[in-house]
Structures are given as structure tokens and as C-alpha cells.
């Protein structure tokens, strides 16, 4: 295929490392995101194992209070911003152009920059452990606990700077994805022929474009409060800690949908293909996803029922929150409708998708429960909420991601992951996940607050805490089995073929892994399930032309340099102005080179 990518200036051989550092290919960037996201998933997992080990027995002595508070804060930040979001972005990167029949995303260099900036944000946040000063105010960082009076060390500065940088990456990639989906669809792919996964991606992009500016402003205000003596969130001087909560949750609630919608999209791709029948109620699922996106901006204060909101806001926000249960319910019905009447191939990807339906439903139902403010008066900040979010984020988001991994691994590598070991791994994850998180419902009912590093023995919390800790070790085995499966599979020859599942969407119409230019001939789309339509109407694949004249963007190291510049600006914000100044110079050099770089 090398000849197909006939661009000037990079015909000489480059080292593998250099290729990855300078790539602007959405598929390579997708792989970078995936590997990075999974690495952070492991770090977040280690944090979780430590937390659960401390809580295995009453009055645990494995961790002290300070370290425990750092770990639960970093566990949430790592999993949300550095594991689930990047793994979601990995699939977005890899599959948006393949799903819509494009050669790359709209802005390939911006795409590379997004990755390097995300990595910078992750490194800034995680490096806080090296200084023994990881953020310890919870991922929600409620003022005024997080101001310089109550949190004098650097932890919360790592938090603000790390998240602003990581947020910048998400903002850039969301704009990139939205523009790509709007402008670069193959001929015939109308919006209502877009795969559901693309629709969910599209909704997620807008959720991030609209919500990230809010948190960025809030984070900068917090940074100013801590470093420049402003008082946006400090009481007594005209500031208001409740303002922080509004700003945080105006971002924080849409963020939940940012985490779950991609997995809903994956399941909506996997289930029809494995059931060998079209998705049940495409329009309803698309509209439900969009409705969730819109409603998601009108529910933030349900995180704040206990702050003294007053009567009317409680009515309003409980009504809007419960309303989200409706489109969510519609989606569950439609997935079940997709299975109904099918001839379901029970692959590991199917297992994870069906697991997603069952587990996500549990998280969805408990979410509607504490949408009721009186019930929330008992649930808020108790283990019931911990159970809820983990059913949504592990039972939902992570199960969906694993389904996607098993489904798309052959496309990305040309190799099918081992199904037997995949299913054994699934059962470890499924059983471990339920043993870890279901007992937390019981603990919540028994009045155990969350974010406590210790508890007494005589409160009836011992048994279920111990069971939850056992569960997390079973989860660890499941994750290790998955990693082993990946390593073993990568050593085997690539025999998966282009289309091992009989897929309906365009990515299965090209080779596995796809060439850099994705499609030799840009496909024409005649139906929502284009490949099935072609199959049923005996429309052959277009002939590969003898000569490909496809122009692909050349690699560029300027995204990496700009990423380093932004990293230095971030590091400077935590240390000294001199490093920030250096970062600005590096960034300016990169912008200069970027602007003048020939793309022809």
C-alpha cells in the first residue's frame, strides 16, 4: 500500500518510533489513545484495589486517611478523564472515518495534537503521586475544602492544571469529530443513514463542546482563588462555594453521558450484527440518544438536592432527571427488540453487549430512584450512589468498551481474540463486577457514607465490605486474562479476514487492518446497513483500480511539539513562570511551523 500514499517528502525510511510520534493517521492515533487509555485504566484499577483492600475489614490499617483520600480522588479522575474518555476517543478516532466512508478525520494534525495534549494532561495529573501530593478533595473538588486554606499543598493545582489541559484535548477532538461527521460522509450516507454509533459520537461531541468551556472557566477560577488571591468560591468575601457546585455539575452531569453514550453506540452496533438482523427502532434509538444529550444539560442540580436548594428547584430538577429515564428506557426496549427474533451468535462481544443491557439497566434504575429528592436525602453521599455510578460506568461504559474491543479487534489487527478465553474472562469480569458493586447497595441502605477511609465493626457493614473486596480481586483476574488474550493473539498470524462477523457497516468493506487511506474506492451508501443492502441486492464491491491516486496528509512533528509546549505551560503553572515562558516559545515555534508546513 505504500505506493498508494504518494506524498512528497517522506519517502525515506523512518524508525517506527518516529512514525508513531509524527503520525496524523486517525487509525494510529486511535491505537495510541487505546493503549494510553488502557494503561490509565490499569493505574485507576490499582488505585481501586488499594481502596477496597483498605475497606476489606473494619478499622483497616493498609492506608492512612491522607493517602486514602488521594487514592479515591485519583481513582475517579483517572477512570473518568484518562481511561474511559480516551478509550471512547480511541474508537471514535479509529472508526469515525471507517464508519462514514472517509479517508481521515477533517483535521488530521489537530487530531494528533489532541492526543499529545491529552497525554500531557494525564502525565501532569498522575505525576502528582511522585511528589506525594495527589489531589485529595474528591473529583468534584467542592469549595472551600479545595481552597489554599484547607488544601495548602499542590494537590489541587495538579487537579486544575491537569484537567484544563486534558479538557483542551477533548474540546479539540470533539470539534474535529463533529466537523468530520457533518462534512465527510460517503455519498449516499444521509444523517438518518448514519450508524447509531456515529450518532452517539456526534451527540457526545456536542455535549463536550458545550460543557467543557464551563468546567474550564471554573477550574481557572479555582486556580486563581488558590494562586492569585481571588475569591470566587470562598465564603466571607463575597465568594460562594455553591457557585462552584453549579459550574462543576453543569459540566459534570453531561460528562456522565459523555462516558455512557459511546458504549450505548457500540452495543447498538454489536447486537444487530450478532443477532443477524437490523437494529430495532433505529429512529427511536437515535432520537433517544439526542434527547438524553439535550436533557442532560437540564438536570445538574440533582447532584445538589441536599445543598438547601429549596422546594421549587427540587420539583424542577427531579422532574427533569426522572424524564431522562424515558429515553433511556426506550433504548433498553430497543436493544431487547433487536435480540428478539434473531439468530444470535454468542460471541464474547455479544456476551459483553448483553451484560451491558443487564448491568446498565440496574444503574439506570437506581439513578431514577435517587432522582427523587426525598430518597436522595438518604442516598446522597452513601454507598448506594457508589453502587449506582459503578453500574453505570463499569456495568455500562466499561462493558460496552470490552464489547467493542472484542468486536473491532479483528478489524484493527487482522486477528480474532481468543473466544474461549474471552468468555472465561467475561465471566470473571461479570461475576467480579457484581460481587464488588451490588453489595454496595446493601451498604448504602445500611447507612454507610462514601469517601470514608475507616468504619466501625458494629454497624452491620463488615460482611458486604469484605465481599466487595473479594469481588475486586476477581475483577483483576478478568482484566489479566484479557491482557493475556491480547498478547497471545498478537503473536498469531493475521487470519481474521476483512469481515469475520458479517458486519453491516462500512468498516467491514475494507481490509483488516485497513490501509492508510481506508478505502481504495470511496463506497456508495444505499441503506442504513450498507453492506447488508449490497449483499441482499447482489451489488458487488467496487473493483480496485489499477492505479490509486490518493493523497493523504503527510506526517508532521508539529502536533507533538505543540503538545510539548502546552505540557511545559502546564508544568510552569505548577512551578515557575520561566517554564511557562519556555512553553510559550515552544508552542509559538510549533504554531509557526504548523502554519507554514506544506501539506501538498
Amino acid at each position, binding site marked *: 500500500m505504500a505506493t498508494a500514499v504518494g506524498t512528497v517528502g517522506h519517502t525515506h525510511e523512518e524508525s517506527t518510533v518516529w512514525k508513531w510520534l509524527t503520525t496524523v493517521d486517525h487509525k494510529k492515533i486511535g491505537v495510541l489513545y487505546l493503549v494510553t487509555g488502557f494503561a490509565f485504566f490499569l493505574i485507576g484499577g490499582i488505585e481501586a484495589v488499594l481502596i477496597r483492600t483498605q475497606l476489606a475489614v473494619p478499622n483497616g490499617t493498609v492506608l492512612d486517611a491522607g493517602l486514602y483520600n488521594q487514592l479515591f480522588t485519583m481513582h475517579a479522575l483517572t477512570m473518568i478523564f484518562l481511561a474511559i474518555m480516551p478509550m471512547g476517543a480511541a474508537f471514535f478516532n479509529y472508526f469515525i472515518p471507517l464508519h462514514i466512508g472517509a479517508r481521515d478525520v477533517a483535521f488530521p494534525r489537530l487530531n494528533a495534537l489532541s492526543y499529545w495534549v491529552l497525554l500531557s494532561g494525564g502525565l501532569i495529573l498522575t505525576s502528582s503521586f511522585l511528589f506525594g501530593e495527589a489531589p485529595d478533595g474528591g473529583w468534584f473538588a467542592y469549595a472551600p475544602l479545595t481552597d489554599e486554606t484547607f488544601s495548602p499543598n499542590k494537590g489541587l493545582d495538579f487537579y486544575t492544571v491537569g484537567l484544563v489541559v486534558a479538557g483542551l484535548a477533548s474540546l479539540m477532538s470533539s470539534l474535529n469529530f463533529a466537523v468530520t461527521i457533518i462534512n465527510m460522509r460517503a455519498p449516499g450516507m444521509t444523517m438518518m443513514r448514519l450508524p447509531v454509533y456515529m450518532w452517539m459520537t456526534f451527540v457526545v461531541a456536542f455535549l463536550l463542546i458545550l460543557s467543557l468551556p464551563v468546567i474550564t472557566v471554573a477550574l481557572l477560577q479555582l486556580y486563581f482563588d488558590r494562586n492569585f488571591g481571588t475569591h470566587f468560591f470562598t465564603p466571607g468575601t463575597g465568594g460562594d462555594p455553591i457557585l462552584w457546585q453549579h459550574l462543576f455539575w453543569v459540566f459534570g452531569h453531561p460528562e456522565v453521558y459523555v462516558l455512557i453514550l459511546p458504549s450505548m453506540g457500540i452495543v447498538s452496533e454489536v447486537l444487530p450484527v450478532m443477532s443477524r438482523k437490523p437494529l430495532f427502532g433505529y429512529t427511536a434509538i437515535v432520537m433517544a440518544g439526542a434527547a438524553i444529550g439535550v436533557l442532560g444539560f437540564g438536570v445538574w442540580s440533582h447532584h445538589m438536592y441536599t445543598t438547601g436548594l429549596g422546594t421549587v428547584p427540587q420539583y424542577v430538577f427531579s422532574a427533569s432527571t426522572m424524564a431522562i429515564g424515558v429515553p433511556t428506557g426506550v433504548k433498553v426496549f430497543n436493544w431487547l427488540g433487536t435480540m428478539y427474533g434473531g439468530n444470535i451468535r454468542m460471541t464474547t462481544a455479544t456476551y459483553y453487549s448483553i451484560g451491558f443491557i*443487564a448491568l446498565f439497566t440496574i444503574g439506570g434504575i437506581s439513578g431514577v430512584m435517587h432522582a427523587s429528592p426525598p430518597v436522595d436525602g438518604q442516598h446522597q453521599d452513601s454507598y448506594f450512589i457508589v453502587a449506582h455510578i459503578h453500574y453505570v460506568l463499569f456495568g455500562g461504559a466499561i462493558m460496552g468498551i470490552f464489547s467493542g474491543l472484542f468486536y473491532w479487534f479483528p478489524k484493527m489487527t487482522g486477528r480474532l481474540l481468543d473466544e474461549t478465553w474471552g468468555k472465561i474472562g467475561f465471566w470473571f469480569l461479570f461475576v467480579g463486577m457484581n460481587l464488588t458493586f451490588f453489595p454496595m447497595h446493601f451498604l448504602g441502605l445500611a447507612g454507610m457514607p*462514601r469517601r470514608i477511609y475507616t468504619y466501625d465493626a458494629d454497624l452491620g457493614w463488615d460482611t458486604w465490605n469484605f465481599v466487595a473486596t473479594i469481588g475486586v480481586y476477581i475483577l483483576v483476574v478478568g482484566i489479566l486474562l484479557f491482557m493475556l488474550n491480547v498478547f497471545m493473539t498478537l503473536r498469531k498470524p493475521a487470519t481474521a479476514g476483512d469481515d469475520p462477523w458479517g458486519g453491516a457497516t462500512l468498516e467491514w468493506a475494507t481490509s483488516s487492518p485497513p490501509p492508510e487511506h481506508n478505502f481504495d474506492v470511496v463506497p456508495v451508501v444505499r441503506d442504513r446497513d450498507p453492506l447488508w443492502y449490497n449483499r441482499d441486492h447482489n451489488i458487488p464491491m467496487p473493483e480496485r483500480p489499477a492505479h490509486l491516486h490518493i493523497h493523504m496528509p503527510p506526517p508532521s512533528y508539529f502536533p507533538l511539539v505543540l503538545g510539548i509546549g502546552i505540557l511545559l505551560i502546564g508544568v510552569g503553572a505548577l512551578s515557575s513562570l520561566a517554564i511557562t515562558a519556555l512553553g510559550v516559545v515552544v508552542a509559538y515555534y510549533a504554531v509557526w511551523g504548523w502554519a507554514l508546513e506544506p501539506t501538498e
Partner: protein
Amino acid sequence: MGRSGPGRIIAIVFSGAVVGVLSYLLYLAFADSANTPQSTWMPMSDNTDNIHAVYQVVFYLAAAVFILILFLTLLFTLMFREREGAVAQQFHGNSKLEVLLVGVPVLIVVAMMVPSFKAIAQNTADPPKGALEVVAIGHQWWFEFQYPEFGITTANELHVPAGRAVSVTLKSNDVIHSFWVPQLVGKVDMVPGHTNHLWFTPDTARDEAYLAQCAEFCGASHANMRFRVFVDTEAKFSDWTKATAADAAKPASELAKAGEQQFTASGCIGCHTVKGNPLAQGKAGPNLTHIGSRTTIASGILPNSAEPMHKWLANPPAVKPGSKMPNLALTEEQIQKLTAYLESLK
């Protein structure tokens, strides 16, 4: 289409049995957890009765949805899993059914919303006239309770009479805390710079305290910020207010007298008030006027007796990480004196 005849019956029976047994086991576990000391499923006041009325509706509706979806997921998996020669039905949906099915979650949500609105109205209404006024102030990491009517300031143990509404004004001295007594009142936050309110009327008096703890993450010792509520009979409460409003008892034993001097010498007076001791006027720490009468010390994490008191005085941050009370490096003798004095403050 899928399995028919015996195959389908087996799938239905198996799915029903699995989901049935699972639901029953979960029910047993929930019921067991409902019967624990800090249970949220044991209403003992009008406030928690109002909550419980909604909670039950919401809980059982949620359980019904859980059972239905789990059953259908398992059933469809079994009925439609791949088999030789089967052909998947090709259909894109069913508009009538889809619109009808939108109605199902709408009905469920409305059924949850109506009782929720009722309970919101009840629990955020103004307290009844003649309610007992209490001011609760959150500190890192202990609770201060003031009774303006009686001129009482105490800490970590709230006494209230049964059958009379208690109106609590919530404040914070530093960061956000949350006031929550699972069996008496749903939580409301204590926010610095804001004043929040809640009220509840405890049902009946009992000797055993209601357990409670801070429910908003508030820093290093959030886990160690606990308190207790004693619901007394009218007479017992009246006795308690008289005793607690009075000045501290004068130390009787020699050791306790020496402890009183040590209390000044070690600087304890800078942070703690002991009513009747003109030197001890500090406000930063809990009021210790009647510390000897409380059942617990260190915001409810240690029982109140000589040995735990000794442990606490020897190194407070070791007991309660981050404690604002520093390790004063007291000698063994000083600790014994102080312990004798504090235990004498009945």
C-alpha cells in the same frame, strides 16, 4: 423464529427461576441491611416517614423494572441464541409498539414523581410553631450544637424531646459538611456562608442513641466526624437541659483539681470553653463544660472513659488524622491529671 415448543418453555422456566431466585436472595440481603444500626430504611420521625413513603414506592417499582428487564434479557438470550438452520427475522422495528413502549417508562416515572413532590412539600415546609430551636455548626471534624432557648452549647451529642418538632439551623465554620441522621432526618448540607434549615419530630423516646455521621466529604477525618442523637422523654429532656445549662461541676479529687490547673497550663483553655471556669473561654474546639456526661469523645469515635480519653490526649492526630487539636506532648502524669479533670465535668 427462535425456539418454540419445549425449547421455549424451558427458556421461560429457566429465566423465571434464575431471576426469581436471584431477586429473592437480593431481597433477603436488603431486608437484612435494613435492620442495622445506621439503617436508612427505619423511619423514626415524621421527616423520615415522609421519605419512607416515597422510598417504598420507588424501591418496589425499581425492583419490578429490574426483574422484568433481567428476565427479558435472559429469556431472549436463551430463546434466540444461535442454532443450526435458524434464520433471523428481518424487521426494522414496530412503530406502534415503540410508541406504546414509550408510555411504560413515562408511567413509572410519573408514579415515582407524584409521591416525591408530596414529600418535598412536606419536608421543606416551615417547621410547626413551638418547635425546639437548635443551631448545628459543622467544624473540621466535629459538630457543635447550640440551644438558644436554654443557653446551652454542647458538641457531638444532640438531645431532643420525643413528640416535639426540632428545628435545626445548619451552619458551617469551615468547609461543607452534611447533617444526616438516617432514622430521623434526611441529609441537608452545612455550607459556609449559607444558612440551611431542616426539621423533624422524633416519634418516641428511647435510651439507645441514633447514630449519625457527616455525609459530605470534608477533608482528612471526614470518616471520623460522627454524632449521636438522644431522643428523650419530655421529663428527661427537661432534666438534661437544666443540668447542661448549669456551670461545670467543681473538681472534687486532688488529681482532678490538679487537672484543672493543667488544663490552663497546657493551653487547653485557648480552644475550649468550660462554663464556670473563667479562664476557659476558647471557642475553636468543643465546649467541654459537661464532657464527663457525654457517652463518647473525639466526635463519637471513642467511648467516653478513662482509657480512651488517655489515648486521645496522648496524641489526638493519631486517633483522628488531621485533628486541629495538636499533639501537646503531654507527660503521663499530665495526661492522668487532665483525664481526671475532664471525667469530673459531669
